[in-house]
C-alpha cells in the first residue's frame, strides 16, 4: 500500500528536480508519440532540443530566435506568477497582450510619420496601459461584485480578439495597404521599429524588459513588503487579512502588474518580430506563458529558464516541421504534456511517499 505523507515544508530538492523530471518524461512520451506518427523518435527529440542550439547550419539563425521567442513568454509569465502566488488566477493574459499591442500601435500610428525619439517610449507606455486597463476589468469586477476572475479574464480574450479583428480590418488598417487587412508595417518606420539592439543576437527591447522584469520580480517577492503580502495572501488568506493586508489591493496590484507586462509584451511583439497589427499577429504567447510560469515554479529565475526552454520547443518544433514533416500541432501537445507531467511529479515536492502495510482499523 502506497501512502502519501505531507511534508512539513515543500522539499527544496524536489522543487528543482521535478521540472527536469517533467522534461524527461515529456521527451519519453513525446518520443513514443512521434514513433506512432511514423517519425524517428530520437531524431525528432534531437531536432527539437539540440539542433537549434548546436547544429552547425541552423544554430546561427535559431540561437537569436531563442531570445526573440523567450522575451514575451518571460515577460508575461513573470506577471502571471505574481498573481498565481497570491491565488489570483489571471488566465486572460492573451487578451491583455492583444490589447497592449492594439493600444500601443494605435497611439503610435496616430503620430505617423513622426520621427520623434519620444514616440517609441510613448508607445511602450500606451501598450502597458492598454494591458493594465484590460487587466483592471476582472480586478474591478472581482473586488466590487465578487465575480470570478478566471472566467471574466478568459471571456475578455475573445472580446480582445474581436477588437483586434476590427482594428486590423478597419480603424488601424494601412491606408496604403490596397484594402488588405493589416496596419502599416512598423519595420518600415525606423523611429518605432523595435529592432535588435545588437545585430544577430535576437536581443530587442522586449527581451531587455523581460530581464529587467525578472530582477524586479525577484526583488519584489524576496525583499519587498508587498511581495510578502502577496505570498501571505496566497498561502494563508485569513492570516493576511488579520495582519491588515487588504485583499482588494492585492487583486488590483497583481492583475495590474500582469496586465501591464502582458501589454508591453504585445507592443514589443507588434513593433518588432510581428511588424504589424494583423488578425493573427498574436501567437498564443499569453496561454503558453501559463505553462512557463508553472514550469518555472512561479519563481523569477525559474521562469527565465522555463521561458528559454519553451522558446526552444517553439524553434525546435519549427525545425522539426521543416526537416521531418512533423505536424505543428504536435509541439502544442508537447507543451501541454510538459505542464501535465510537471503537475503530476509535483506530488514529490509536497509529499513523502511511504510504502507501508495497510493498518488495521
Amino acid at each position, binding site marked *: 500500500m502506497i501512502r502519501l505523507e505531507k511534508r512539513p515544508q515543500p522539499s527544496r530538492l524536489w522543487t528543482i528536480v521535478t521540472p527536469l523530471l517533467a522534461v524527461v518524461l515529456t521527451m519519453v512520451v513525446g518520443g513514443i508519440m512521434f514513433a506512432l506518427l511514423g517519425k524517428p523518435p530520437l531524431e525528432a527529440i534531437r531536432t527539437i532540443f539540440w539542433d537549434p542550439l548546436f547544429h552547425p547550419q541552423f544554430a546561427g539563425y535559431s540561437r537569436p530566435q531563442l531570445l526573440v521567442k523567450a522575451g514575451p513568454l518571460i515577460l508575461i509569465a513573470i506577471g502571471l506568477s505574481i498573481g498565481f502566488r497570491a491565488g489570483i488566477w489571471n488566465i486572460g493574459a492573451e487578451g491583455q497582450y492583444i490589447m497592449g499591442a492594439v493600444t500601443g500601435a494605435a497611439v503610435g500610428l496616430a503620430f505617423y510619420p513622426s520621427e520623434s525619439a519620444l514616440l517609441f517610449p510613448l508607445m511602450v507606455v500606451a501598450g502597458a496601459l492598454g494591458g493594465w486597463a484590460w487587466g483592471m476589468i476582472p480586478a474591478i469586477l472581482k473586488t466590487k461584485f465578487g*465575480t470570478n476572475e478566471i472566467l471574466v479574464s478568459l471571456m475578455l480574450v475573445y472580446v480582445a480578439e474581436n477588437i483586434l479583428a476590427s482594428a486590423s480590418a478597419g480603424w488601424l488598417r494601412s491606408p496604403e495597404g490596397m484594402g488588405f487587412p493589416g496596419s502599416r508595417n512598423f519595420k518600415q518606420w525606423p523611429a518605432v521599429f523595435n529592432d535588435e539592439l545588437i545585430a544577430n543576437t535576437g536581443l530587442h527591447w522586449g527581451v531587455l524588459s523581460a530581464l529587467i522584469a525578472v530582477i524586479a520580480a525577484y526583488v519584489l517577492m524576496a525583499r519587498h513588503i508587498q511581495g510578502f503580502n502577496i505570498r501571505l495572501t496566497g498561502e494563508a488568506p485569513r492570516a493576511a487579512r488579520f495582519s491588515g493586508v487588504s485583499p482588494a489591493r492585492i487583486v488590483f496590484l497583481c492583475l495590474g502588474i500582469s496586465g501591464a507586462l502582458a501589454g508591453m509584451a504585445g507592443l514589443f511583439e507588434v513593433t518588432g518580430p510581428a511588424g504589424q497589427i494583423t488578425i493573427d499577429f498574436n501567437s498564443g504567447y499569453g496561454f503558453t506563458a501559463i505553462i512557463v510560469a508553472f514550469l518555472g515554479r512561479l519563481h523569477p529565475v525559474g521562469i527565465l529558464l522555463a521561458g528559454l526552454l519553451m522558446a526552444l520547443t517553439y524553434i525546435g518544433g519549427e525545425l522539426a516541421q521543416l526537416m521531418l514533416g512533423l505536424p505543428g500541432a504536435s509541439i*502544442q501537445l508537447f507543451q501541454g504534456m510538459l505542464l501535465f507531467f510537471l503537475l503530476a511529479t509535483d506530488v514529490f515536492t509536497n509529499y513523502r511517499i511511504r510504502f507501508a502495510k495497510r493498518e488495521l482499523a
Partner: protein
Amino acid sequence: MDPVLLVASIMVSATPILLAAIGEMVVEKAGVLNLGVEGMMITGAVIGFAVAVSTGSPVLGFAGAALGAAVLSLSFGFLTQYLLSNQVATGLGLTLVGLGLSALVGASFEGVRAPGPGKLWIPGLAEIPVLGPMLFRHDFMVYVSLLLVAGVWAFLKYTRAGLILRAVGEDHESAHALGYKVVRVRMAAIFFGGACAGLGGAYVSLVRVPQWTEGMTAGAGWIALAIVVFASWRPLGVLIGAYLFGGVTVLQLNLQAAGTNVPVELLSMSPYLITIIVLVVISARGVHGAPGSLGRSFHASA
C-alpha cells in the same frame, strides 16, 4: 425572422453548451473544479468526427466522443485526486493538452464532411402546427441533452447516490468520516463530466458546423463553466442558462446575416460580453450556492 426557425435554431445552438455544462455541474457538485472542459470538448469534437466519418455512423461518433473525452478526463482525475495537484492548474493543462491533441488528430480530417444524425420526426407531436417544427423535429442529441438534465436533477434530488455525491462536495472531511469513498465518488463524477463534455464537442463537429476545424469549440467550454455559476449549481438553471446563451448566439448571427449597421466584431463578441454581464449580476446578488469543498484537494491523512 421566422419565430419557428428561431426557436429551432436556438435549441441546436444551445445543445453543446448544455451537455458540457450539465456534466461540469455534477463534477462541481462533487467538489471538484475541472477547468479542462474546453479541452475535453475539443477532444470529443475530433474523436466524434473521426469515428463518425470512418464508420459512417453518427451514433457511434457520439459514443466514441463521450468515451474518449471521459478517458482524457481521468488523467485530470488521477492528477488531482491521487497526486493532489492544484485543480486550477491541472484543468488548464488539460485544456492545453486537449487543444494540441485534437489539432494533431484532426489534421487529416480537414475539409471532410461528417455524416450528421438525421432529424427525428416524432410521430404525432411533429405534425402539430408551429410547435411541431419548433420542438419535435430535431436530431436525437437534442432530446438526449434534455433527458440528461432531467436525469441529473432526479439523481441529485431523489437518489441516495446523489445525496452522497452532494455530501462529498459540501464537506469532504465529514463525508470521509461517515465512511464514504471521497476520491472514488469524485473520480466517477469527473468521468461523467468528461463524457458529457465529449458529447457536447461532438455535437459541434457533427451537427452545428458538420466539419472539423482546429479550435472549433471557440470557448464553448469556458461558457459552459460560466453557465454553471449562472445556474447557482442547479440543473434547471443550467438549462435556462444554456438556452439563453444559445438565444444570444443565434440572434447575433441572424443580425450579422441581416447586415445591420452594428459592426460584425461587436456582434461576434456579444455572447462573451453578455456572459460577463450575467456573471456580474449573479455575483452581485450574492447568492452563490457553490458546494462547500469546491476546488479543495482532499487527502485522508489525519
